[in-house]
């Protein structure tokens, strides 16, 4: 039983981190209509900044710079590239983002090489044990922080002018624009928010039990794509729930692989996509998606 609970806790905490990434995908999509395939390298940029700066300026200052840097990078991608597209076509923008991802990733890979850069977090390799359940301290903190961040996001979208403007722009850009909402501002805010969330997720994805910042971190962000899709492309709540489902299912599939070996080895890799396809078969717009959201 404690084995099951350990895997469950592990899956839930990982799922909340995936949720942070998936929410970033959703916010960029709803605010500017872009499928942001450069999200992984934005995440890696944030984590890389933290790893190289934590030595000289300390961990917490480095985290602030990393989050600000990733947010700024998102704003720049939006301002320089996305807004200059001749026509706002999701397909063109998605391909543009793939290009941006390759460029950023190549440069970061060149800088990191095959080193593993320690993230220098104060929780190191500690673990917490509650009852028979053990969980890395970094994961427990990540889970708690993710819940707080999601609470703040709810407050932002429900109670602040900026958040309401962003929601209005997402629901109907043309009308919102006529009502005096500046889509350039809501777009920039969306990209900044997504970049900041990605950097936070990056710090935890690079913390114990992972070894540190390496180029593979950018790819692990793509594990959030099934979460984003199955939650519905345009739903923040869906992205969080999707993240939790993918996290738990992956942890249980790997943990109980020996009981499921008729399905073959390496199950953890396939299972998120299998779940995503199953959900889309039953609910074509995802769990919380609007039926009219554009799907690729």
């Amino acid at each position: 039983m404690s084995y099951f609970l350990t895997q469950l806790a592990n899956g839930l905490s990982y799922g909340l981190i995936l949720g942070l990434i998936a929410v970033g995908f959703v916010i960029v999509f709803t605010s500017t209509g872009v499928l942001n395939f450069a999200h992984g390298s934005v995440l890696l940029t944030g984590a890389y900044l933290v790893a190289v700066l934590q030595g000289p300026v300390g961990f917490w200052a480095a985290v602030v710079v990393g989050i600000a840097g990733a947010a700024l990078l998102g704003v720049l991608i939006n301002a320089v590239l996305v807004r200059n597209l001749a026509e706002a076509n999701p397909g063109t923008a998605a391909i543009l983002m793939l290009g941006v991802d390759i460029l950023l990733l190549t440069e970061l890979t060149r800088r990191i090489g095959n080193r593993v850069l320690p993230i220098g977090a104060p929780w190191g390799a500690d673990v917490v044990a509650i009852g028979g359940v053990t969980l890395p301290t970094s994961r427990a903190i990540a889970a708690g922080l993710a819940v707080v961040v999601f609470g703040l996001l709810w407050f932002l979208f429900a109670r602040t002018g900026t958040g309401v403007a962003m929601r209005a722009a997402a629901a109907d850009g043309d009308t919102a624009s006529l009502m005096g909402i500046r889509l350039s501002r809501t777009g920039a805010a969306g990209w900044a928010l997504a970049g900041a969330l990605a950097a936070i997720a990056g710090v935890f994805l690079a913390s114990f039990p992972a070894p540190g910042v390496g180029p593979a971190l950018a790819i692990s962000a793509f594990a959030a794509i099934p979460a984003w899709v199955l939650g519905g492309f345009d739903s923040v709540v869906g992205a969080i729930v999707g993240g939790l489902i993918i996290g738990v299912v992956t942890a249980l599939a790997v943990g109980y692989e020996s009981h499921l070996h008729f399905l073959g080895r390496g199950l953890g890799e396939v299972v998120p996509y299998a779940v995503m396809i199953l959900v889309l078969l039953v609910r074509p717009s995802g769990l919380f998606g609007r039926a009219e959201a554009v799907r690729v």
Partner: protein
Amino acid sequence: MKHRIRTTLALAGCVAVLAACSTEDPDAAPAGGGAEGEVRTGTGVTADTITVGMLTDLSGPFAAGAAVQVTETQAYYDQVNTEGGICGRDVEVDVQDHGYDPQKAVALYRSMASNVVALQQVLGGPTSAAVLPLAEADGLYLGGHGWAGVALQYENAQIPGTTYSIESANAIDYLVDELGLAPGSKVGVVYFVGDYGSDSLAGAQHAAQQRGLEIVPQEITPRDTDLTAQASALQQAGVSAVILGAAPAQLASLAGVLAAQGLNVPLFGNTPTFGPSLLATPAGPALEQNFYTVTSIAPFSLDQPGVQAARDLYEAAAPDGETGWEVPLAYAQAELLTTALRGACDAGDLTPEGVVAAMRKTTGLDTEGLYATPLDFTDAAQPPTRTVYVSRASGQAEGGLEVLGTFEGPSAQSYPVG
């Protein structure tokens, strides 16, 4: 009229460029039989130079380690050249970057094959797998491609040590004979699917069968850098040791998580699993406590004349360079090719085919400690040695590894390669 002149000029320009890129080397003596002293020459050899190629990864995931190998290889041939060269000729190294992309590696191979006498290195599993059949068809020597057992089916490939499978078989034998693992125990194998990890698993499975152990396999991908779920599953299965056929990021995670779970069992890694930078991560203490590696190439810190020569050369060439097992490996690989080139020169046939033939006559090659035993390349289907160095992670040792000794177990001897 103006347009026609412009078109004609453009066409003429294209023809000139094509001619310049022609694959015929105007300086090369005819392949059929040159009168260059007594030595026949072919592609990549002129009256005063021998050109060897390196297809490596200077922009992809293995860029840092690959750069160390390029530095060391160039320093090696600079030294060879100051000592008079090979066959009266200087050796030049043509380095190209494939960025770990098999498509690019094949394209670069095509443009390079007609200008080199041998390929000193094609770095990476998928890249060398793409190039090996082409090089075999061209009869071109290919070295420095890692230790996957599949390379043993190629006559032209010179594997720089023993295979991953034999490394892992030795790890099992070492666990039983030196660390006292009891019969019936379970051993986890966490591995990348493919030429590398699957070969490692095959060796471990063979040895486990021989020694009465049970293997608990866990398949992963290079994307997995958090091995918590795998570590929990291994603990649940009750393993007494773990073998890892993966990369440094996976090693750090697995070692850290297993130690955090209180499962302090021996953790063995194949050659590419370890990098000294891991000792600075939170997993450092766990690695120093539990990690062993089985390698046919000597670790950086080994006190033997061959390894010392490799270190001296590297420290002169790159005083602040990163240290690791890549340094002795690059030195050894250059020495293997140099031996073949000298053999080809002595046999009077410095053509690509002559180099491959000379490589296949290499036997009893003493590398002064770079490898644990003399090497024998006469049978393409067999690895040149089955002995490995067993080392432990250590923050004190240069390159992060401290050598415990050499080892060759019964399952490693009986493993049927190929």
